[in-house]
C-alpha cells in the first residue's frame, strides 16, 4: 500500500514536475502572506511585516530545493544530469567513443548472430511429445561392418511384437513424388511413407483432418495422402476445404485426409544422413506429402528400406532397450539363418542422431564467439583505463567539490551503459545483416536452419549481454577513481605518477590476455582453413569443372517396373536411347552419358559374390552399384586400367557384363586377375570386362568405396541423371539439358540441374561455413588485439615522454628510441602468443572431427600463426615508436614541466 502510494507520488512528481514546483511555490507564497498578515495584526508596518515573514521562511528557493528532494526526484534529476554528462563526455572524445562502440558492436553482434543459430537449432523444443524417450532402432551387419541400416518389414514386425522396453514402434522411409498441379508441369516433391503408428508415436497432431488409420496402412488400402503445411499454403492457399479433394501424385489419384504442421518433418534430414543407406530422399527439404507405408517391399527379410523409430517404455532406458533388441536380433538370426545371419540391432537416442553431428560445430562457434566478446570487452576496458588516466584531473576536481564515491561510480556506470547500449544497437544491426548473409551459407544438415533469425529471445539475450558488459565497464574507472589523490591530480601529476605504474601493469596484462585468446582462435581458424583447402584440393577422381547434370525420375505408370520383362523394358530403353541422341545435339556438348546416379550421389550398394569364391565372399562389404551408359567414362574422365570399357557391344540380350573400380580390385582381387571373373548380384552372374580408376562417390573426404559399373541397357533404371561434358563453361548449358529431357517426355519433373562443381561445393558447405566463421572471428579478435597493443604502447610512450626526451637530449638516436619502444611491445606480444599457443594446443581438442588431412598439432600452422601475429604486432607498435623517436627533446621536456 505504502509502496504503491510512494510509487504514485514519485511517478506523479516525475510527470507533473513543473506543476508540483508551481504548486509548492504558491504554497510558500501563501505561507509568507499569512505570516505577514499576522505580523501586521500585531502592529508591524506592512513592508516590515513582509520582510520579517520572508526571513522567517528562509530563502524560498532553498525550501523549494529541499522539498523537491523530499519528493524523491533527486535520483531522476541526477540520472538525467548523468546522461547529459555522459553524452558530452562521449562526444568530446569521438575517436574513443567510436572505437568503443564498434568494438562492442562487433562483440555483441557476433554473439547475437551465433546465439540465434544455437537457440533455434539446439535450444528450441523438439516438436514431438516427450522427445527424449524417442529412439532410432537400426539394424547392423557384422559382415559388411555397417551399424546404421534400415530394417526389413518382417524384422520390424518381430521387433515391435517382442520388445518390452519399447512402448511402440513405427517405420518410415523416404520417397519422391511427382505432384501434378492443376496446371503446369509436374513438380517433384519430397514424400515420406510412414506406418500408421508413426504420428501417434511421435505425438504429432494434424493441423486439419486426421492421420492414417491401420486399414490405410495395409497393402491395397485406400489411396490417401496427408499434405505438408508448406505445400498446403503454397499450392492450396491454406484452404481448409482441401480435405476430401483429390491430388495426383506419380500419376495416381490420392484423397487428401489431413494437413500436417511444417514441424512434422523435424530431424528426418539428419536421420537419413546418418543411415548407411536409405530409400530415395530429397535432402534437405520439407516433406510435402505423407503417404501410408502400405504395400511394397513388405514380404522379404532381405530388403531393408524401413527406418525404425521407437519410444522407450516407462522405466526402460536406452541401455535396456539396446540389450533387449540385440537379444531379439540374435533370436531372429537363429530363426532365419538365410536372411538374418550376422544381423544385430543398434539403438540410439533420436537426440544423438539429430543433434550429434552439429553439436561439436555449434559448441566450437559458441566458444569462438565468446572469445570474440571477451576480447572486445578487454579492449574496451583497456580503452577506458587509458581514458581514465586522462580524466584523473576531472575526477579529482569533482571529488574535491564533494562528489561522493557512489555518485562518481554512478556517473561512470551511466557512461559505460550508454556506451554499451550504443554498442548493443550497432551489434544487433550487425547481427541482423550477418544473419542474412549467413542464411545462404548455413550447412544443410543443421536442424531447423530455415527458421534462424532475430527474435525476441535473441534480442533479450543481446540486451543481457549489453547490460553485463556495461556494468563491468562501469566498475573499471570506479576502481581507478578510488586511487586518485585529488591533490596530486589537480596539480597535474595524477596522470603520470601515483598508481600509474600498477595501472600500466594491469593494461599490459589485459593486452597479453587479448593476444593469447586471439592467437588461440587464429590457430583454430588456421587448422580449419588448412582442412578446407586440403578438401578442396582432393582429386575426387572424376571431371568436375566442365560437367553439368540434370536429374529426372520416370513414373511407374508409363515406365513400368515389370520384372518379368526386365531388363527389356522397352519404354525405358527407348527413352534412354532418345535422350542420349537428343543430348548429343546440345551445342558445345563434348560427351554425354546417362547414369543411375551422378558421381557425388552415394547411390546404392548390394552384397555380391565372386563365382567360385562364394564362401569367402560371405564376409565381404557391399559393393557400390553404378549403372551407366557407354559414354560415362569419357564424360567423367575416368581412366581404364585394364580390360575394356562398357560400350555398344553390350546389349540388352547380350552376355551380362560389369566393370569394377581399382578399390574393388584392391579389396577383392589383390593378387588375382579380375578380368574374366564372374561376379553375381541381383540374381545374375556378370563377367568382369575391365577395371577403371576410382571415383569418390561418398564425398571428397571419404575414400572411394569398392564399386562395380553395369551397362544401363542391361539394368534400366527408373531414376536417372543426364551428364554432359561441355567444351567450355558448363553453366549456361543447364537449361539445354532440361529442354532435352522435356523434349522426350514433357511430363517429367527435372531437378538438380547444375554443374557438378556446384554440387561439389555444396557437399563441403559445412566445412566452408565453419572455416569462414571461425576465420572471421579470428580476424576480428586479432584486429582488436592489435588495437589494444597499439593503445597500450602509445599510452606507455606518452607517459615516458619525459624520459624519452631526456634520452634524446643526452644523445640517443631515433633508431634507439624506436627499438626501445618496440621492444616493450614485443615482450607483450611474445608472452601473449606463447600463452595463445598453449591455449590452442589444449583447445584444439574441440576441433577433432572437423579437421581433414591436418593434425591438431600441425607444425606449419603452429609456426605460421605466431610469425604472422608477431609481425602484425610489430607493425602496431611501430607507429607509437616512430612518434616517440621524432619527439623534439626541448618541447617534450618543457611540456612535461607542467603548468
Amino acid at each position, binding site marked *: 500500500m505504502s509502496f504503491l502510494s510512494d510509487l504514485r507520488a*514519485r511517478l506523479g512528481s516525475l510527470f507533473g514536475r513543473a506543476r508540483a514546483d508551481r*504548486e509548492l511555490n504558491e*504554497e*510558500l507564497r*501563501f*505561507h509568507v*502572506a499569512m505570516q505577514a498578515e499576522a505580523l501586521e495584526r500585531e502592529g508591524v508596518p506592512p513592508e516590515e511585516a513582509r520582510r520579517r515573514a520572508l526571513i522567517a521562511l*528562509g530563502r524560498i528557493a532553498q525550501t523549494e530545493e529541499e522539498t523537491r528532494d*523530499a519528493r524523491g526526484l533527486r535520483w531522476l534529476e541526477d540520472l538525467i544530469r548523468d546522461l547529459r554528462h555522459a553524452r558530452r563526455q562521449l562526444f568530446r572524445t569521438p575517436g574513443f567513443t567510436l572505437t568503443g562502440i564498434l568494438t562492442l558492436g562487433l562483440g555483441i553482434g557476433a554473439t547475437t548472430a551465433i546465439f540465434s543459430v544455437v537457440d533455434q537449432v539446439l535450444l528450441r523444443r523438439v516438436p514431438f511429445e516427450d522427445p527424449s524417450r524417442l529412439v532410432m532402432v537400426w539394424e547392423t551387419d557384422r559382415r559388411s561392418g555397417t551399424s546404421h541400416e534400415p530394417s526389413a518389414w518382417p524384422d520390424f514386425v518381430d521387433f515391435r511384437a517382442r520388445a518390452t522396453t519399447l512402448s511402440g514402434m513405427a517405420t518410415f522411409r523416404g520417397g519422391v513424388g511427382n505432384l501434378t498441379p492443376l496446371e503446369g508441369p509436374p513438380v517433384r516433391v519430397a514424400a515420406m511413407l510412414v506406418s500408421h503408428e508413426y504420428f501417434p508415436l511421435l505425438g504429432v497432431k494434424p493441423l486439419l483432418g486426421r492421420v492414417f488409420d491401420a486399414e490405410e496402412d495395409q497393402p491395397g488400402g485406400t489411396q490417401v495422402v496427408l499434405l505438408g503445411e508448406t505445400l498446403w499454403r503454397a499450392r492450396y492457399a491454406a484452404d481448409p476445404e482441401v480435405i476430401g479433394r483429390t491430388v495426383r501424385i506419380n500419376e495416381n489419384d490420392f484423397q487428401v485426409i489431413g494437413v500436417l504442421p511444417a514441424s512434422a518433418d523435424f530431424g528426418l534430414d539428419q536421420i537419413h544422413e546418418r543411415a548407411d543407406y536409405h530409400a530415395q530422399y530429397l535432402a534437405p527439404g520439407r516433406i510435402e506429402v505423407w503417404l501410408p507405408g502400405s504395400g511394397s517391399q513388405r514380404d522379404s527379410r532381405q530388403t531393408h528400406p524401413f527406418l525404425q523409430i521407437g519410444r522407450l517404455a516407462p522405466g526402460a532406458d536406452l541401455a535396456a532397450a539396446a540389450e533387449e533388441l540385440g537379444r531379439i536380433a540374435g533370436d531372429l538370426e537363429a530363426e532365419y539363418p538365410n536372411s538374418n545371419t550376422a544381423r544385430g540391432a543398434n539403438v540410439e537416442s533420436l537426440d544423438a542422431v539429430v543433434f550429434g553431428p552439429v553439436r561439436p560445430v555449434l559448441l566450437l562457434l559458441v566458444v569462438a564467439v565468446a572469445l570474440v566478446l571477451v576480447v572486445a570487452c578487454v579492449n574496451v576496458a583497456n580503452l577506458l583505463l587509458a581514458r581514465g588516466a586522462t580524466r584523473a584531473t576531472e575526477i579529482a576536481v569533482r571529488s574535491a567539490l564533494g562528489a561522493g564515491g557512489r555518485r562518481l561510480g554512478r556517473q561512470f556506470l551511466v557512461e559505460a551503459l550508454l556506451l554499451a547500449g550504443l554498442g548493443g544497437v550497432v551489434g544487433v544491426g550487425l547481427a541482423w545483416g550477418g544473419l542474412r548473409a549467413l542464411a545462404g551459407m548455413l550447412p544443410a544438415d543443421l536442424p531447423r536452419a530455415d527458421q534462424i533469425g532475430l527474435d525476441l529471445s535473441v534480442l533479450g539475450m543481446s540486451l543481457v549481454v549489453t547490460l553485463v558488459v556495461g556494468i563491468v565497464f562501469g566498475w573499471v574507472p570506479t576502481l581507478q577513481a578510488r586511487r586518485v589523490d585529488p591533490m596530486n591530480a589537480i596539480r597535474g601529476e595524477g596522470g603520470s605518477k601515483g598508481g600509474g605504474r600498477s595501472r600500466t601493469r594491469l593494461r599490459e596484462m589485459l593486452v597479453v590476455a587479448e593476444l593469447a585468446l586471439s592467437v588461440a582462435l587464429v590457430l583454430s581458424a588456421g587448422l580449419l582453413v588448412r582442412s578446407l583447402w586440403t578438401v578442396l584440393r582432393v582429386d575426387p577422381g572424376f571431371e568436375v569443372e566442365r560437367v553439368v547434370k540434370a536429374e529426372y525420375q520416370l513414373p511407374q505408370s508409363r515406365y513400368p517396373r515389370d520384372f518379368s520383362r526386365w531388363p527389356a523394358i522397352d519404354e525405358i530403353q527407348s527413352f534412354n536411347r532418345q535422350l542420349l541422341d537428343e543430348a548429343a545435339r546440345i551445342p558445345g556438348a563434348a560427351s554425354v552419358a546417362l547414369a543411375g546416379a551422378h558421381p557425388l550421389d552415394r547411390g546404392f550398394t548390394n552384397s555380391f559374390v565372386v563365382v567360385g569364391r562364394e564362401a569367402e565372399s560371405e564376409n565381404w562389404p557391399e559393393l557400390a552399384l553404378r549403372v551407366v551408359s557407354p559414354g560415362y567414362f569419357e564424360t567423367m574422365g575416368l581412366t581404364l586400367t585394364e580390360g575394356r570399357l562398357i560400350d555398344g557391344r553390350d546389349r540388352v540380350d547380350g552376355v551380362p557384363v560389369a566393370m569394377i573400380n581399382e578399390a574393388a580390385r584392391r579389396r577383392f582381387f589383390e593378387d588375382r586377375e579380375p578380368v574374366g571373373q564372374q561376379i553375381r548380384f541381383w540374381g545374375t552372374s556378370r563377367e568382369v570386362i575391365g577395371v577403371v580408376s576410382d571415383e569418390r562417390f561418398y564425398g571428397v573426404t571419404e575414400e572411394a568405396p569398392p564399386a562395380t559399373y553395369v551397362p544401363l541397357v542391361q539394368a534400366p533404371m527408373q531414376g536417372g541423371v543426364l551428364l554432359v561434358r561441355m567444351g567450355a563453361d558448363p553453366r549456361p548449358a543447364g537449361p539445354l539439358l532440361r529442354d532435352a529431357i522435356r523434349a522426350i517426355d514433357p511430363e517429367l519433373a527435372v531437378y538438380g540441374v547444375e554443374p557438378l562443381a556446384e554440387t561439389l561445393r555444396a557437399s563441403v558447405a559445412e566445412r566452408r561455413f565453419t572455416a569462414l566463421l571461425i576465420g572471421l572471428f579470428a580476424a576480428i579478435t586479432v584486429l582488436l588485439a592489435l588495437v589494444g597493443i597499439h593503445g597500450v604502447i602509445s599510452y606507455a610512450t606518452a607517459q615516458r615522454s619525459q624520459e624519452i626526451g631526456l634520452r634524446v637530449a643526452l644523445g640517443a638516436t631515433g633508431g634507439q628510441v624506436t627499438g626501445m619502444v618496440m621492444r616493450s611491445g614485443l615482450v607483450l606480444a611474445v608472452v601473449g602468443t606463447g600463452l595463445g599457443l598453449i591455449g590452442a594446443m589444449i583447445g584444439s581438442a574441440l576441433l577433432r572431427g572437423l579437421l581433414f588431412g591436418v593434425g591438431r598439432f600441425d607444425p606449419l600452422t603452429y609456426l605460421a600463426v605466431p610469425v604472422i601475429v608477431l609481425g602484425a604486432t610489430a607493425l602496431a607498435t611501430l607507429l607509437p615508436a616512430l612518434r616517440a623517436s621524432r619527439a623534439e627533446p626541448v618541447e617534450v621536456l618543457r611540456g612535461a614541466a607542467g603548468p
Partner: protein
Amino acid sequence: MHGWGITQRIEQLSSQALQVNQGTLYPALERMKRKGWIRSEWRITENNRRARYYELTPAGRRQLVVERAAWERSSGAVNGILRWAPEAGGAR
C-alpha cells in the same frame, strides 16, 4: 489545515515553546505525503485565498498511534531518568 495553520497551531499548543522552521515543515509534509500518511488538496480560505490543506489518511492515523506510543515510551523513559536524578531537586 494548511501549512501556515500547522505552524500556528504548534506554536499555540506548545505555548510558543516550539517554533517550527518552515524550511523543515514543507519537506516533512512532502515526505509524509509520499508515505501516504497525509493527503492534500487546494481549497479557498475564509479570506478567499487559495491554500493547500492537509489531512490525515487512515494510514496516517494508524501511523500516529504507532508514533505516539513510541514517543510516550521514550519520553516516559527520559522522564523516569530525570525524575530519578538527585540534582533535579524533586522527589527522590
